[in-house]
């Protein structure tokens, strides 16, 4: 999967550890490794967030700057990358990733990278609905994800920002459709939204 173009003009700043050669070798010492896994997890989440990427195919990503520091000529090996992501999927890793289709065993290992988990996305959506007074209005999924009203990052005035959207950015514009559905499902489950309609013409109403 080719990573999408960065949405913002500002370039991604890598953490210092990215210039530290041993960072690209999983450390044998368990304590050191734990700290390393945390650093990798943060880097992956930040990187994906910056590029507005929701899914990562590991095999493809191994050749991107995320896992490969061309300057140092270091790269995280397939196995190590798998271990990092696998750690992210577990509780100790904060469940910041989730394998898609069979996970580690499946070739290519595609994974969700949850820089926001579906529950967190649900909060962002609810926040936006409240901030813009769209409660009890029927909206189509298409306009929510791709429509103009969620474009421009909908900078919400500071005092109106909900906690989960403290930066005031509506990152869900242009979001992965499946993840968007999942996030809505969280709200449906809580009785805060209702989704209806057929495949292409789905609508949603927020309560």
């Amino acid at each position, binding site marked *: 999967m080719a990573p999408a173009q960065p949405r913002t003009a500002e370039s991604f700043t890598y953490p210092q550890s990215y210039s530290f050669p*041993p960072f690209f070798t999983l450390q044998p010492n368990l*304590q050191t490794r734990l700290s390393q896994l945390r650093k990798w997890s943060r880097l992956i989440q930040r990187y994906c967030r910056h590029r507005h990427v929701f899914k990562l195919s590991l095999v493809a990503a191994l050749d991107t700057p995320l896992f490969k520091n061309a300057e140092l000529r270091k790269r995280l090996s397939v196995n190590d990358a798998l271990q990092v992501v696998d750690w992210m999927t577990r509780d100790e890793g904060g469940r910041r990733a989730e394998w898609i289709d069979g996970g580690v065993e499946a070739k290519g290992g595609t994974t969700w990278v949850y820089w926001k988990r579906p529950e967190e996305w649900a909060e962002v959506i609810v926040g936006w609905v409240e901030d813009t007074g769209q409660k009890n209005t029927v909206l189509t999924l298409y306009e929510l994800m791709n429509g103009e009203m969620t474009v421009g990052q909908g900078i919400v005035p500071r005092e109106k920002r909900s906690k989960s959207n403290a930066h005031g950015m509506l990152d869900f514009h242009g979001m992965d459709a499946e993840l968007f559905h999942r996030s809505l499902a969280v709200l449906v489950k809580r009785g805060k939204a209702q989704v209806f309609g057929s495949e292409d013409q789905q609508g949603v109403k927020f309560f």
Partner: protein
Amino acid sequence: MSARRGVGLSAFQNRSSLSTSYATHGASLRSTHLSSLQTQLSVFQSLLHNFALQHADTIKSNPSFRAEFARMCNAIGVDPLAGSNVKGKGAGKGAIGSLWAKVLGGDVNDFYFELAVRVVEVCRGSRGGNGGLLGVEECKEQVKKGRGIGGGMDVSDDDILRAVKSLNPLGSGFSIVTVGSKQMIRSIPKELNTDQSRVLEAIQVLGYVTASMLEDNLGWEHARAETVIEDLLADSLVWVDLQAPEKEYWSPTSMNDFED
């Protein structure tokens, strides 16, 4: 003449009275010196108090000014840190100390204690990745950035050293160790042995080391080099890079992104 020659019996008496008068004269000289020195010192200290009072704001905000000030205090035996809790313990330092805290409203003390808390936070945050050995320099940078409550603090190396020192009474195991040319904060109480220190020094100079580099430069046998490296790895003090022709060992002190 005869008296000076002192050959008679009375000479004994003369001699002893002479030495007593020398002794009393010496004692009186000493005591005048002492009292004049004490006056000088107390004058100086009171001037210092006034100075501190006048420049309290600068002391708090300007790190290099603060360092010079602290140095001056040390030189005349006033420790800005000590004595805030020692209330009039003897007429000497204790009294000065408590007065000190009174004059400054405990500000200087608070400053260092607050800083110490930050230092502890930074050390803890990075402990997993660096085995509890953090450069004073790096710690300073991190405190300046100040992710914690209240934003960053503008501090000098000297301030960090003092703050770590102020933790001593807590028996917290925080200490300053010197590795090569660098001062580092040790937040996990464990001694480095000579070999370990030498390897860390070598890493400071060369950037990284390999077993054979240690053998060549320090004249160690292979087994010795391997053992020391294993120990350092086990303590999280070095990280290994397996993607090099020979295993390279790096010190994580050069890598300082902290987990929030």
